């Protein structure tokens, strides 16, 4: 069963045709990685799913059409979103960042404090003064407070030190047991660890769908992603 089905998704930004008919599906209760070179439309795809960019085409969450639904209703409907570059609210405290995101009747603070104990002790600290890794923890923790039908995660390890990459990867691996996830990620080691399915994009279109075992094939990785295998 598919949690998410994207069909013929088109996005134009300032006259440029960024997504040119994107089609792919995200199986339920699995982690799907959305891969591709820089600038091929991966982050735009996530933003279009969240209705942060106007788009044409179809995005279905189980049987419910999301295209045309406002962003806040998509989020309330069970689509959690961790944006690229964190986008935490720097002038709010960590606790305020979290309470702003909590809309479930019984927000799961227990889960996020078990994943990121540091957030509990830094509750009163302004989020803008946190390190990059701590800010990423806040960004990942926000949607986890609610019950999600799918979690969209955009480049969670971007710009993090190797030690923090491992910490964030551990957290995502744990979350992956609980939730369907669509992850945009450049770190192929992390993708191999958590993903059961991969979708590769190029020039605004999907060019490959299949299993992550393909990532062990150096030729595949080089031709599809333009890098040698392992950590890009």
């Amino acid at each position: 069963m598919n949690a998410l089905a994207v069909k013929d998704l088109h996005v134009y930004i300032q006259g440029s045709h960024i997504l040119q008919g994107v089609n792919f599906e995200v199986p339920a209760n699995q982690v799907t990685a959305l891969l591709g070179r820089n600038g091929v439309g991966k982050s735009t795809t996530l933003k279009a799913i969240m209705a942060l960019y106007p788009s044409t085409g179809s995005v279905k969450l189980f049987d419910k059409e999301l295209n045309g639904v406002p962003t806040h209703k998509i989020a309330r409907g069970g689509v959690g979103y961790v944006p690229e570059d964190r986008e935490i609210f720097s002038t709010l405290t960590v606790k305020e960042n979290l309470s702003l995101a909590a809309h479930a009747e019984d927000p799961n603070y227990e889960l996020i404090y078990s994943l990121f104990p540091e957030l509990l002790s830094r509750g009163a600290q302004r989020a803008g003064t946190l390190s990059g890794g701590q800010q990423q923890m806040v960004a990942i923790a926000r949607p986890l407070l609610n019950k999600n039908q799918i979690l969209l995660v955009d480049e969670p390890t971007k710009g993090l030190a190797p030690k923090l990459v491992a910490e964030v990867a551990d957290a995502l691996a744990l979350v992956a047991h609980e939730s369907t996830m669509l992850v945009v990620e450049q770190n192929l080691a992390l993708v191999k660890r958590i993903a059961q399915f991969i979708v590769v994009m190029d020039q605004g279109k999907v060019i490959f769908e299949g299993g992550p075992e393909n990532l062990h094939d150096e030729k595949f990785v080089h031709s599809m992603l333009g890098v040698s295998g392992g950590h890009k």
Partner: protein
Amino acid sequence: MDTFILISITGIGLGALYFLVASGLSLIYGLMGVLNFAHGTFMSVGAYMGLWFSTQVVHTTNTWTFIGALIVGGLGGGLFALIVEQLVITRLYERHIDQALVTVGVALVVGAMLGGWFTNDLRLLPTPTWFINIVKVRGAIIPVDRFLYIGVAALLLVVMLAILKFTRIGLIIRAGVENRHMVTALGINVRLAFSAVFFLGGFAAGVGGVLTAAYQNGVSPLTAGTWLIYGFIVVVVGGMGSIGGSALAAMLIGITKQFANYYIPGLGDFVIVFLLAAVLLTKPQGLLGKVSA
């Protein structure tokens, strides 16, 4: 020394009136990116509502009547702002040039309607008799109404800061000023916050309308434009979306203008424009402003 004290306190009093105009403008631009040229009409509507309350509903000029006029003026300004937001602004979100043009249109139409109804002449707003009293502060003779303007502005500043700091809607507004798209991505209908901000801004402008009517000895649709220009200057100097910045800039501009007019008669406005240019060149985001996403 007494001159210095006189100019300082009257400058703070003038700044308090600027703050009442600018606080709503600042929040509305900071959160929604709306350059609201109709904000002056919120002042005018508030002032005329206060005048209506004072002259048609009750016929006394005591302190309670004036407090009632402030509340009615504030509510009138707030409700009118909400109507403008619902009828005009909601249809034009993200279309900033259209918003600016339409709000200019609203200002012109409402100004003309008020002028047609009430004429453009100043209509005297009844004020309590103690308004003409003076107090002596270290030898300086200060009109007592200046302390009222300062007190009302300080009260509204505290109430606004408390709403922003301690309520859920305040949390949404603060986050929205920083990054409104991310607020919606967290499942929050930011338009409810937009409406709340319009009401709050309109309320402050309405109260400001009643107080400026007392300050300039009357209500006229023609005066809102001048106050609005100063409101925009305060917003730019203080920083878009920052209530604290607006308060600081309003005081700075009020005091500077009074001192400039005293020492270089007639050049107060010029000095304020010079101050605005200096801030734009050295700190383009304003004294306490942040860049909104």
